[in-house]
C-alpha cells in the first residue's frame, strides 16, 4: 500500500504531491529531501525511515520519485511501480525532465489518480489507461523533422537514463492523434557490454545485455512483425541456419508478444501499444561470438627522473568500415597523489587530463575507426614513487558507444506493419552497443 507519492526535482522543488490515504502530513516531502541531502555517498539508500513512515524512492530523469508507506508492503512492488510510473509519464509527456513535469502537472496528477486508488496499484498498462486519461500533454517544442538528423546519435554516458533514444522519439503519445499523419515507429536494438580483461590479456568475464525496444506513434497499427536473424538461437544446444550463429543464453519477451512464428522463422508478432515498450530482453554471458572490440597493451615503468611512464596502445578489433566509434573515454587509475601530467597523444583531436579527485587520467578519443590502433604516452610526476606503488596502477576503464553494431550479432531482418499504413509512415531501426563496464586490468 502506498500512502503518498511525490516527485521532487533534484534541487528539492515540490513538483507533484498526492496523498492517497491521509496517513501522514505533507511535511514529509521536506523531511525526505533533508534526509537525502544530509547523506553522503554516491547514492542514498533506497529505503529510508522516519518514525513509522518509510520512504522508498528511485531516481529517473534527474527527478526523485518517492513513495511513502506505513505498512509492510513489498519494497519490490513499490520500486517496480515507481519505475513504471516514470515510464508512463515519459510515454505521456514525451520525455522525462523537471520542465516536462512542470508543464504537465494536471496530466500527471490525473495519471496518478487512475493508476493508484487508495494506495493500491490498479494498473500500469498504457492500453488500459488510454480509456481514462483525458488531458493532453503539453510538449516544450513541436516535433520537427530536423530532429531526425540526430537519429542514431546517443548520449555517450553509460548511465541508463541517458541511453534514451534521441529527441526524435521523445514526444508524447497522445498528441499523435492531433498531429495526424506523422506515424512513425522506432525499433532500437540496444546492447550493453560488461567486459573484464585480465592483466595477461585473457578475457575474464564477458557479459552482454540487450534489449529490443519499440516506440510506437502509430495510432492504428494493429500488428507488427519483427523478423530477427534466422540464425538466432537461444541456449547452447540448438544451432540454426547456415550463417554464423547468433546466440544468446536467455531471452524473455514482453507479454504482448506472440511467438507462434518465432520457433520456425524467428518472427516476433505484436500489437504495439502507443509509447515505449521493451519487446525482448536477452543476455549472453562468457561466450561472445567475436573478440572483445578493444584491446589494450600497456607498458608501465619508471624513468630515470622518478616519473611514472605509462605507454598505452589501444587497438580496435572491429571490422574497418562497419564501425565508427564516436567517443571513447578511458580512465586510467594511477597511484595516489599525482602532481602533474604530460602526455603525447597520437592525434590532435584527442585530449587527456588528470582528474585529481578521482585520481584518474582521462583520455578522450572522439573518433576511432575499426582496425586501427592508437597510442598514448603519459608521464606522471609522482612524489615518492616506489616499486610497490607501481603495482597500484590501474585498472583501465573504457566507456564507448558503437552505433550500428551489436555484440551478439543480432539484426532485424525486416519490420512489417499491418494493415499497411495510410499516408507517410516511417520506420526506424537503430542499433547501438554501449559499454556498461569495460575494464582492463593492468
Amino acid at each position, binding site marked *: 500500500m502506498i500512502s503518498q507519492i511525490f516527485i521532487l526535482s533534484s534541487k528539492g522543488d515540490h513538483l507533484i*504531491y498526492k496523498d492517497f490515504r491521509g496517513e501522514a502530513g505533507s511535511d514529509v516531502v521536506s523531511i525526505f529531501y533533508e534526509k537525502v541531502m544530509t547523506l553522503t555517498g554516491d547514492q542514498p539508500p533506497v*529505503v529510508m525511515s522516519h518514525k513509522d513512515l518509510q520512504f522508498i524512492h528511485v531516481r529517473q530523469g534527474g527527478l526523485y520519485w518517492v513513495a511513502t508507506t506505513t505498512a*509492510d508492503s513489498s519494497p519490490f512492488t513499490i520500486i517496480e511501480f515507481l519505475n513504471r510510473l516514470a515510464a508512463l509519464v515519459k510515454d505521456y509527456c514525451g520525455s522525462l525532465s523537471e520542465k516536462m513535469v512542470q508543464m504537465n502537472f494536471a496530466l500527471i496528477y490525473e495519471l496518478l489518480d487512475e493508476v493508484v486508488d487508495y494506495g493500491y496499484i490498479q494498473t500500469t498498462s498504457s492500453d488500459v489507461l488510454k480509456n481514462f486519461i483525458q488531458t493532453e500533454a503539453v510538449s516544450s517544442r513541436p516535433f520537427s523533422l530536423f530532429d531526425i538528423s540526430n537519429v542514431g546519435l546517443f548520449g555517450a554516458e553509460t548511465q541508463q537514463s541517458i541511453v534514451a533514444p534521441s529527441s526524435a522519439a521523445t514526444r508524447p503519445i497522445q498528441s499523435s492523434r492531433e498531429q495526424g499523419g506523422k506515424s512513425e515507429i522506432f525499433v532500437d536494438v540496444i546492447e550493453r557490454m560488461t567486459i573484464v580483461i585480465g592483466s595477461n590479456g585473457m578475457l575474464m568475464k564477458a557479459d552482454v545485455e540487450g534489449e529490443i525496444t519499440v516506440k510506437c506513434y502509430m495510432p492504428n497499427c494493429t500488428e507488427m512483425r519483427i523478423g530477427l536473424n534466422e540464425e538466432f538461437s537461444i541456449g547452447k544446444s540448438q544451432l540454426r541456419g547456415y550463417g554464423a550463429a547468433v546466440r544468446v543464453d536467455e531471452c524473455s519477451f514482453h507479454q504482448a508478444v506472440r511467438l507462434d512464428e518465432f520457433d520456425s522463422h524467428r518472427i516476433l508478432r505484436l500489437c504495439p501499444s502507443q509509447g515505449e515498450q521493451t519487446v525482448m530482453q536477452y543476455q549472453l554471458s562468457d561466450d561472445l561470438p567475436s573478440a572483445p572490440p578493444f584491446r589494450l597493451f600497456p607498458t608501465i615503468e619508471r624513468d630515470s627522473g622518478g616519473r611514472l611512464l605509462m605507454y598505452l596502445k589501444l587497438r580496435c578489433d572491429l571490422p574497418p568500415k562497419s564501425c565508427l566509434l564516436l567517443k571513447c573515454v578511458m580512465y586510467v587509475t594511477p597511484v595516489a597523489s599525482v602532481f602533474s601530467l604530460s602526455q603525447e597523444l597520437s592525434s590532435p583531436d584527442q585530449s587527456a587530463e588528470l582528474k585529481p579527485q578521482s585520481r584518474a587520467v582521462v583520455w578522450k578519443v572522439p573518433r576511432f575507426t575499426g582496425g586501427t590502433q592508437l597510442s598514448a604516452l603519459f608521464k606522471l610526476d609522482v612524489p615518492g614513487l616506489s616499486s*610497490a606503488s607501481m603495482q597500484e596502477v590501474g585498472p583501465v576503464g573504457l566507456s564507448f558507444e558503437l552505433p550500428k553494431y551489436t555484440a551478439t550479432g543480432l539484426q532485424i531482418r525486416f519490420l512489417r506493419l499491418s494493415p499497411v499504413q495510410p499516408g507517410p509512415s516511417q520506420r526506424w531501426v537503430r542499433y547501438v552497443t554501449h559499454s556498461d563496464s569495460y575494464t582492463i586490468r593492468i
Partner: protein
Amino acid sequence: MSASSAFNDEKGGSSSVAEPEYGHDPASGGIFSSDYKRHDDLKEMLDSNKDSLKLEAMKRIVAMIARGKNASDLFPAVVKNVACKNIEVKKLVYVYLVRYAEEQQDLALLSISTFQRGLKDPNQLIRASALRVLSSIRVTIIVPIMMLAIKEAASDMSPYVRKTAAHAIPKLYSLDPEQKDQLIEVIEKLLADKTTLVAGSVVMAFEEVCPERIDLIHKNYRKLCNLLIDVEEWGQVVIINMLTRYARTQFLNPNMNESLLEEGNSGEKTFYGSDEDEDEDEEEKEKKAEAAAMAKRKPYVMDPDHRLLLRNTKPLLQSRNAAVVMAVAQLYFHLAPKAEVGVIAKALVRLLRSHSEVQYVVLQNVATMTIKRRGMFEPYLKSFYIRSTDPTQIKILKLEVLTNLANETNISTILREFQTYIKSMDKDFVAATIQAIGRCATNIGEVRDTCLNGLVQLLSNRDELVVAESVVVIKKLLQMQPEKHSDIIKHMAKLTDNIQVPMARASILWLIGEYCEHVPKIAPDVLRKMAKSFTNEEDIVKLQIINLAAKLYLTNSKQTKLLTQYVLNLAKYDQNYDIRDRARFIRQLIVPTEKSGALSKYAKKLFLALKPAPVLESPFKDRDHFQLGSLSHLLNAKAGGYQELPDWPEAAPDPSVRNVEVPEWTKCSSREKRKEKKVEKPFYSDSEGESGPTESADSESDSASGSESGSGSEESGSGSESEESEEGSESEEEEEDEEEKDKKKKKKELKKPVQETESLLLPLFRLQTISPSSALKNYELLHRITGEGLSVEYCFSRQPFSPDANMVAVQMHFTNNATSDTKNLHMEDVKLQSGMRVKEFPEIELLPAGETTTAVMGIDFCDSTQAANFQLCTHTRKFFVSIQPPVGELMRPFFMTENEFRKEQGQLMGMNEITEKLTLDAKCRNEHAIVQRVTTAANLSRVPCGSDKEFAGRTVTSSSLVLVTVATKEEGAAQLTVNCEKMVIGTMLVKDILLALTQ
C-alpha cells in the same frame, strides 16, 4: 473589470506554455500577487458556459493540487460542474472532489446524487468511476450509501465494476470499521468471483480488512492458484503473498524429514549443474516420493494443493515485473521442498540486470538466502562480481554475497577477485573488501595463512585507510592463533610510527598488549613512544595505551613501572571522564598499596585472561526470521502492519476444507477414500507434464481420475460402480473451480478425456476452446401441435448423470408455446423393458406462457436401444411419449493409451470384431472431420497419439469395452473396425458410424 484584465493576463500566461522561455507555470503564483484575485478569475471561468474555459480552469486547479497548493476555497464553484457533460471537465472535477470532499463535507454532499445516477449508467466505465469517486469521498454520513453502492457493484455484470467494488472495500473500512462484518460478506462474495480482473483486487481488500479470516480462502484456494497466471501483475504479487501465508497454516513442512545436520550439505549437492539437471532431480525425487507414498511408509506426502501452488507459481518466475519474481522466489524459499528451491536462483540473478534500486533490494534478499542455502547460488558466482559502475551500496552487498558463497573450492577465485577490488578508488568499498577477506579467512581454515599474508602485504600500501582497515582485520585474525605470528606483530608495532587512523592504532596497541609475551623487547619501547604522544592521541587510542601500560606492568614491571606511572598520571588529568575513571580504576587494581583490596591479587588473571576470538559473521545472519521480500526484511526491523509468517503446523489441518461445495446428491460417502487416492497420485501428471509450464491441477486430477476409473472397472462389478460415482463427483467439483461460461459445454468436455490429455500441453484457459464444437443433436419428444402448445425436445447431454452412474443423462427442453401457463409438468406411468430403470426429472411446477425450461432425467437402458415409454403429464393433459437412444449414446468415453488399446483389441477378436469397408464422404477426408463425425455419432474418446483414428469407450451399464478404428487409405477409401463384446451394440454402432462417415 479588474477581474477580466486579470483573466487576460492569465490567458497570456497559459498560452506561453509552449514557448521555449517558459519559466514558471501560470498557477505557480508568480504572475499574481494575491490569491484572492486569481481564484476570482478561476471562479469566473468555471461559471462560464464554455467547456473550453472550464477545462482550462480545471487544469490549472488540478495543477495547483498536484503541487500541494491549497485550492479548497474553490470548492463551491467546482462542485457545480460535477454534472458537466464534457467528460474531460468531469474527470478533473472528480479528481478535485476526491481531494477536498473530506474538508467540505456539506458541499460534497451536493454531488452525491450525481454519482448515484452515475452508478446506474449503462456505460461500465462511468459506473466504475462513479463508484470510485463516491467511495473516495471520506464523509461519514454517506457510509450507508457507499455500503449499498458497493453491494450493488459487487454483483454488477461488468467485471471492471466488480473490481472497483473490491477497491472500494478498504476505503469504506477505514472510514467506518464498524461495517466490517458486512464488508466481509461482500469480500466473501467477490472472492468467489471467477474473473481474473477481480481476483487481485479482492485479495488486496481481504488483506486489509480481514487477513485473519483465512477460512474464507479455503473454498477459493484452487481457483486462485489456477487463475493466478492470468491475473494482472500487481494482483499477482498480493495473491502470492497471501497464499504463502495460507500455505504456511494449512500444509506440512516439506522439509520436516530432513535432519538439521543435512541442512548445510544437502543443498550443495543438489544444486550444482544446470536447470535440466534440477528438473531431473525433481522428477527423480518425485518418483521416489511416489513410490514411497505407494508403500505408505514415508510419513510425509505433499498435499496435492501444496504441489498445485508450487507448480502454478513457477512459470511466473519469468515475469518481467520484479515484484512478481520476488514474490514467487520468497514463496519457493518459504514453502518448497529443499531440492526445488534452486529454481529461483536463476530468476533472481536475472533481476540483477535491472535498475540499481531493484538490484539493491534483490541483493539484500540473496544475501539472506545465501546464508541458509549457499549451494543455490554457487553456479552464479560470477554474476555477483563487482562492476566498476556499481554504486557503493551494491558493491558492498555483492561482497557480502560473495563472502557467503566462498568455500574451499572457489575461495582462490574469490580471493583473486577481491585482490583487484582493493585497487578501487571507492574507500568504503575497499574497507569492506578487506573485511570480507577477513571473514573468508575465519570461515575457511585452509586459506587463513594466505589471507593473513595478503593482508600483511597491504600494510605497506600507500593508502592509509587500506592499512588501517587491514590492521583491524589482522588483529581479529591473529587472535585465533597468536603464537605463530609474532613476526607479524612486530611488523605491526613498527607501523605505529606511520599510521594515524585511530582505530588502527588502537588495534595495534591492543595486540601488542595482549601478546606482549611474544614480543618482550618491542612492547616496552612502543609504550615509551606512546607515552610521549599520549596527550595528542584520540580517546580510543588513549584507552588502549592505558591498557597496554597495565598489561606490561603486570608482566614486565621492572622495565615499565615508571612509564606506567607516567601514563596513569597523564590520564588522571585527561579531559575525558572515561579515561580518568579508567586510569583510577587500573591504578587501584595493579599498583599494590596497603589499601588495595583482594582484587589486586587477581589483576593478572583479569587482564591477561584468554580472550575468545571474535566471530566474524554476516550481518544478514538472523535476518531470515523476517519474510523475504518484505519491507521489514529490508529494514531489518518490524515495519508497521508486518504479518509474521506463521510456523508450519504440527499436523496438517483437514485438507477437505478446500473441496468446493458440490450439489447435495453427490456428497458421496467415500470422500475420504477418494482423498486418499488423490494423495497417492499427486505426481501423476507431473512426471510427464514438466514440459507444459501452465498445466493445471484440473487436468492432473482429471487424468488421474480417468485412470482410476480404468483400474476400477477391471475389478468386480460392484467395485466399479463406486469408482464411477466417485469420478462423477470429482469432475463436478473440479468444474466448480473453473471459470466457465457454458456449463454444459464444460461438463461434456470433462467427460472427454481426449481433450483432457491434449490440454495437458495447453494453458488452462484454452480448455474451453477445444471442447467439441459439434452441437448436441436434438430429438423431438412432443411436437407443439400434438402437445397443444407444449413442445418438448430432448438430447443426450453426454454428461455424467450424477445420482446414478449407470444411467444415461437425457436433457429435456420444455417450451410452452401456448397462451396459458402450464403447471405441474411431471412424468407418470413409466413402461420399461425388464432391467431398465428411470430416474424421473423433478416436477416442474409452473411453465409460464412463452417460457422455456430444461430438466434432466436419467435412464438406464441396460445397454440396449429399447425405448423408454412414459406419460408426460401437465395439470390438464397427458401425452404418451418415448425416448429411444441411438446406440452411440449408450457408451461413455474411456481413456486409454495406444498400447492398452492394441492389447484390448487383441482380446476382442473373432466374433467380437466387425469390419466394414467404406468410401468416405468427400467432405470428411481429413482427420479432424473424421474424428468429429465419429465422436458425434458415438460418445467415444479418441485414443491420443494413435497412428490410426482410434476411439474407445465403455457401455454405460455393463462397462463393456467398445473400440472403434477408422483406417484411411487413398482416395477416401477406409476401413472401419469395431470391437465390442456385445455383438448387437457392435453391429448397430458400425451402421451408425458408417452412416455418419459416408453422408
